[in-house]
């Protein structure tokens, strides 16, 4: 059953009016212990975990609705190979300089390393069998991954974004998706950042110039359109 559109800014989403479950994906970006769990990378840097955890509840609701509607569900994880040979040297240097070195040992294992406890997705929005998981070495989920191939192969043209952090990995991935021609919606209460002001600004940037990267809506607005 085709549904939509969603009450969104700066235009009712999607631009072509219809949410087709066969062509729509829910993207869950980096809901990992390292970014929203105690003892992970963001915690080690001293940021307020409440800010990055704020979107977990609403995201779990949207995830349940997307599963029920038969959307493609894609989870991403940022992390590096255990030998860090896929970590740019400047990224490694910066992390060590502020005392949260990639590959260093912490309460949740080695920071931002694949296979470690901190790299796992938190239980509230954990993947289930059959859902896609994309591991990425950078901030954007398209760079050096097979995400675009997976989406195209599944016939996806529309993407709904959740995840952390808003101004870094979510924005980078949404910008890239938009350049690739996907019609994108960011759910404002299903994302968070390490700084509240940067979060607010990141939401506004999506809506500039008539929606330069797509549109922004609340999870309630999406659920109202999907449950209609």
């Amino acid at each position, binding site marked *: 059953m085709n549904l939509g559109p969603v009450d969104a800014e700066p235009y009712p989403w999607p631009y072509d009016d219809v949410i087709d479950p066969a062509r729509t994906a829910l993207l869950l970006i980096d809901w990992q212990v390292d970014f929203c769990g105690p003892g992970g990378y963001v915690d080690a840097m001293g940021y307020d975990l409440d800010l990055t955890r704020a979107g977990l509840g609403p995201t779990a609701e949207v995830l349940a609705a997307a599963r029920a509607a038969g959307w493609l569900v894609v989870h991403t994880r940022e992390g590096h190979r255990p030998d860090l040979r896929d970590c740019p040297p400047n*990224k490694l240097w910066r992390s060590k300089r502020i005392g949260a070195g990639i590959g260093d040992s912490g309460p949740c294992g080695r920071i931002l390393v694949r296979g470690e406890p901190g790299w796992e997705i938190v239980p509230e929005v954990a993947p289930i069998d059959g859902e896609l998981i994309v591991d990425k070495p950078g901030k954007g989920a398209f760079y050096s991954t097979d995400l675009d191939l997976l989406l195209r192969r599944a016939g996806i043209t529309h993407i709904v974004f959740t995840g952390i952090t808003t101004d*870094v990995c979510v924005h980078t991935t949404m*910008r890239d998706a938009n*350049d690739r021609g996907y019609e994108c919606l960011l759910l404002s209460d299903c994302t968070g950042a390490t700084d509240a002001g940067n979060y607010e600004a990141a939401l506004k940037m999506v809506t500039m*110039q008539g929606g330069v990267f797509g549109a922004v809506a609340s999870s309630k607005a999406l659920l109202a359109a999907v449950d209609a």
Partner: protein
Amino acid sequence: MTTLDQTLPYPWPYDGCLDPGRLALIVAGAQTGWIEASPDHAGVAARIAAVSRAVREAGALVVLVHHSRPAGSRPTPFPPEHGTRPAEPGVAQSAGDLVVRSAGVDGFHGGPLDDELRTRGIDHLVLTGFGAEACVDSTLRSANDRGYECLTVTDAVAFFSPQLGRHALASITMSGGIFGAIGPSAALVEALSHASSPVPMEAK
């Protein structure tokens, strides 16, 4: 070791290697449409011109990026009147400069920018330009994931909105410099005046 004064959150570049042979100035959104969409475009164009002169004199590369509309997207995401004609004298192409096209807001997307930089051995980028929350920011993110060491020049980027621009710059400095560093044009021009490429560009 050479690093710039006044850059945040760390003295740029991280490796202390300010080598003009490994450095390029990127001017993103260097075209009609994106330029006019930025309220402070005249002042920013003047500072881009000053940085461009210093970069050329040091023997480093200047790259102007012309963005095309993303393929297959909805009708309205770009300034409708965007074109490829540089509207400001300061952002006009000079001899030795490179002009590359991209197929989106990100200067790397669907174009030759990455190849052009890598074949020249360039791994340090200075980011400037127009429509900065869009063109400069997207290009910076893409460059950073690719491992380029990036400096965004705070007074040589023209934002649609100064308030959003402050946050765009602040985001760069989070987590120890998640997208590199930021700093003023004067610091870069000063540092470049003491740097010279060990190998002339023509010999490469």
